[in-house]
């Protein structure tokens, strides 16, 4: 039988007032396997802990139970004391006789009986505790940041500036993301590109950052500190090493009628192009789909134009494997297609545009060089109607959630319009104005009060064309009257939705996402930048709609998590992890399906001649977080959870 020490803490009067500690002590004294039982006023005090350590040493104890406050208070304290006395810290259990006994019961007799039961059952548990060693995993000090928008750039820079290596992967030909498309930013109205471009350049030139644009993540394996990532570097057909970015090829390309994605299809671009003038890296790519040579086998005008011969039509996609210790996911968002609002006429009337298209119109580097012009005829619109929540907060047609940034950017649009088109009239249909944020409400007030945007609380029911005007019929719910406005342009504040491939990508990297495809954080309140998969963090709008300051803040938070992780050579984790009995495992893979962390792997058991005998589950200690869901599932009782083994719990229950 074991040699158990029981330590009963009076916690001053906190425990002793309601529990007969002397009776508890003598009950424990009589319990089989208890070598020593002591009580003391405050075992958590230094002398109290010394008593514990002394008792462990003198009696060669094989386990201890401290009957005291909640383990959430002092489990760590007493485990440390055990370790200092030479006893494995996991041979310590805490009987919670304060929070869950003395503080909540007034009948001394019954509280004492309960305390005896609790302590006894934990004695039986601790007799079956095993010595455990914290799990150590090495850390590869290199981070992967997926997504080269503002969130990704910020995270990469913060990590790199802390001296750690970063691989920054962007699937478009250039860094920048959505922020590069914006004109001015709220609430300060500073030019988006002016603040963005230096960051892009800094990231590209940073000695600690390896930049992989026009590249995509193919596969992620491994676990915290030890991920292996396969990256596809898509063929650019332009040699990145030699290209100087002179742009001659772009000028000469005969194919100039391709819809420009960066300009939200408001402009045109050639088949060899950079998305925008300030692109980083400033190296063009060939759009294979639209290139005449790839289509017809003839042309090669760009190759002829190139002064240094860096066009290579034979180029193939390349795959690289990299080892990283942490991953920041900053894959951003897309705007929702507004086609489901047939009544708004998007796609039917060229002058019904999205907010992002308006950004391009208002941008100095945009297709109109910053002039607000109607896409249909290039006329300056005299009246513009902005429709908010064109998708957001609409469970029937759009999405249930609020896209968070639309109120602000619509105000900004109204202001930009007022500044650029003197005498122009902006009408904004809104449901609520959500302007929480530093300087935000003031900003919308300015739009209304200084720039005289007319805000109408209500929904738009229909937009139609009449006499060259876009007729907008809505309702002003404050006046309780229908409204009809003849506008020259209608701007829809479309919903922010996850990237189209967000759900599939979540599977690739092994994290969870919600019904829309926004990635799940480990805890919405307390762990908002971590995912349930240790070592993978979330930044920016891939987690939920966010504005720039929030994205940047979250990116920096991610960076601090990564830097924290990289501050050590090895990770130490609580050894509460599952383990599998390979002899009894039948390989039914229920655990594999049930595990929230993908920590179960399939392991081949071979005989001596290398033939497969059977396949069994193997718990990856780096990925397992110790929830025990697999243990409960396992019909043959093959998987068990260290620290809460079947034997321990059985004994605990049978000891009650």
């Amino acid at each position: 039988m074991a040699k158990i020490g029981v330590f009963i803490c009076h916690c001053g009067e906190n425990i002793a007032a309601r529990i007969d500690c002397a009776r508890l002590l003598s009950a424990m004294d009589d319990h089989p396997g208890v070598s020593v039982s002591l009580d003391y006023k405050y075992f958590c005090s230094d002398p109290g802990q010394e008593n514990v350590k002394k008792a462990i040493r003198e009696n060669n104890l094989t386990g201890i139970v401290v009957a005291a406050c909640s383990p959430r208070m002092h489990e760590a304290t007493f485990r440390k004391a055990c370790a200092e006395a030479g006893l494995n810290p996991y041979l310590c259990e805490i009987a919670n006789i304060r929070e869950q006994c003395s503080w909540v019961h007034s009948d001394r007799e019954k509280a004492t009986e309960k305390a005896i039961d609790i302590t006894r059952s934990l004695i039986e548990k601790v007799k079956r505790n095993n010595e455990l060693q914290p799990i150590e995993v090495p850390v590869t000090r290199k981070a992967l940041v997926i997504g080269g928008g503002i969130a990704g750039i910020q995270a990469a820079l913060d990590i790199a500036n802390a001296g750690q290596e970063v691989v920054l992967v962007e699937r478009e030909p250039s860094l920048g993301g959505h922020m590069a498309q914006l004109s001015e930013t709220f609430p300060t109205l500073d030019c988006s590109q002016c603040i963005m471009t230096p960051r892009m350049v800094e990231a590209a030139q940073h000695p600690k950052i390896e930049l992989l644009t026009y590249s995509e993540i193919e596969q992620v394996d491994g676990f915290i500190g030890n991920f292996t990532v396969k990256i596809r570097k898509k063929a650019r057909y332009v040699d990145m090493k030699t290209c100087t970015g002179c742009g001659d090829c772009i000028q000469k390309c005969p194919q100039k009628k391709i819809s420009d994605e960066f300009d939200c299809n408001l402009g045109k671009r050639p088949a060899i192009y950079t998305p925008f003038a300030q692109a980083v890296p400033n190296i063009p790519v060939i759009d294979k789909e639209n290139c005449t040579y790839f289509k017809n086998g003839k042309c090669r005008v760009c190759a002829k134009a190139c002064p240094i011969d860096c066009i290579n039509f034979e180029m193939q996609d390349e795959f690289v494997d990299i080892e990283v210790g942490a991953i920041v996911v900053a894959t951003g968002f897309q705007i929702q297609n507004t086609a489901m609002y047939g009544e708004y006429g998007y796609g039917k009337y060229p002058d019904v545009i999205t907010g992002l298209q308006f950004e391009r119109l208002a941008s100095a580097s945009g297709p109109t060089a910053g002039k607000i012009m109607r896409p249909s005829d290039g006329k300056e619109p005299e009246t513009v109607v902005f429709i908010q929540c064109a998708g957001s907060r609409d469970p029937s047609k759009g999405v249930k959630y609020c896209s968070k940034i639309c109120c602000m950017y619509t105000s900004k649009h109204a202001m930009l319009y007022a500044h650029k088109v003197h005498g122009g009239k902006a009408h904004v249909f809104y449901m609520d104005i959500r302007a929480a944020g530093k300087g935000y409400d003031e900003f919308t007030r300015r739009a209304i009060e200084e720039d005289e945007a007319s805000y109408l609380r209500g929904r738009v029911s229909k937009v139609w064309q009449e006499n060259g005007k876009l007729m907008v019929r809505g309702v002003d719910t404050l006046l309780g009257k229908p409204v009809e406005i003849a506008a020259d342009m209608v701007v829809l504040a479309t919903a922010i939705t996850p990237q189209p491939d967000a759900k599939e990508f979540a599977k690739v990297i092994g994290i969870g996402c919600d019904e829309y495809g926004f990635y799940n954080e480990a805890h919405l309140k307390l762990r908002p930048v971590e995912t349930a998969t240790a070592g993978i963090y979330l930044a920016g709008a891939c987690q939920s709609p966010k504005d720039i300051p929030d994205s940047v803040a979250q990116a920096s938070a991610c960076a601090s998590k990564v830097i924290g992780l990289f501050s050590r050579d090895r990770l130490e984790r609580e050894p509460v992890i599952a383990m599998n009995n390979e002899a009894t495992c039948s390989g039914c893979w229920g655990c594999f399906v049930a595990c929230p962390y993908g920590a179960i792997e399939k392991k081949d058991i071979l005989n001596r001649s290398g033939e497969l005998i059977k396949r069994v589950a193997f718990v990856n200690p780096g990925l397992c977080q110790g929830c025990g869901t697999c243990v409960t599932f396992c019909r043959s009782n093959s998987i068990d959870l260290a620290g809460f083994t079947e034997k321990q719990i059985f004994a605990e229950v049978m000891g009650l």
Partner: protein
Amino acid sequence: MIQILLRDKLDDCITRWHAAGYDVIGPQKNNNVTRFAPVEKASELDLEIILTDRTVKELFFPQTEPMFRYRIGKQAIDTEEYLPPGRKRIIFGSRPCDASAMAIDDPLFGWDFKDTYWFQRRNETVMVTIACTESDDFCMCTSLKLAPDSPLGSDIMLRPVAGGKGWHVELLSERGREAFDRIEALLDDSAAEKEPIANVPKRFDLDVCREWLADPENFESHFWKEISIRCIGCGTCTFLCPTCHCFDFQDEGDTYSGIRRKNWDSCSFALFTMHTSGHNPRSTQSSRWRQRIMHKFNYFPGKFSMNSCSGCGRCSRQCPVDMGITETLQEITKTAK
């Protein structure tokens, strides 16, 4: 003088036995299963059953029996012994095969070391057996050189008289004397024709089988694998066998006290002989079936001069995959010839 127990005297008979301090136990159908249980009145008995689903074995060797309770203290262990209830009893209406089976197991439970639980019950029990006048497709006592009216293991033998009005009563042992005396006055001495006993066909040649089994050459024969291929390894045949006697000990209880029990166990179970090292001397179902047959018809007779089988046929009757001793011995008979 022929003495007849009339069926309508059965209630009186039971009353007298009760008055003499006997528990009376007989076959009953209860909850979709036929087995032996205490009776108060004759009407509770179901004497038309050819053979109960469950055997009389459980009245001597229960499926699970607490042997003693232990209490683990800090300084001492207390044990409290549980023994059989110690009441005289009459098992009324067992069949000759079941009764024989008890006699067959006596030497096993008594060689050198005597199993108290078995013998106390054996000594307290009077077996009143009813000879069989009917049999079914699985009965095979005659193949075991027993018969539908074998006296082995019985203390009093009842033989049905024609017309079903009662039974010829024959006292077979001293142990049955008191029970017999208690009801002698009830017996009728009018002459009555005995109903002929059942005609149970001989299904295999036991001598041939035993010879074949005794030949060490046949131990590794492919026969065993073939004959047992569909065996699923359950314990039906062993648990329903009146002579199968394997058991296990189990401690059950909580951390501080518990009960050590003697439970039926089965040589069909893969874990029966498994060492903690993982080595299992009888690792395949065919080796386990071989053991069962060998034990019953080769090893046991070698030790105790009796086959460990009384021919009740339950193993074949109840097997979920229609296997059984009969088939195996029939096949051996064929193979050997």
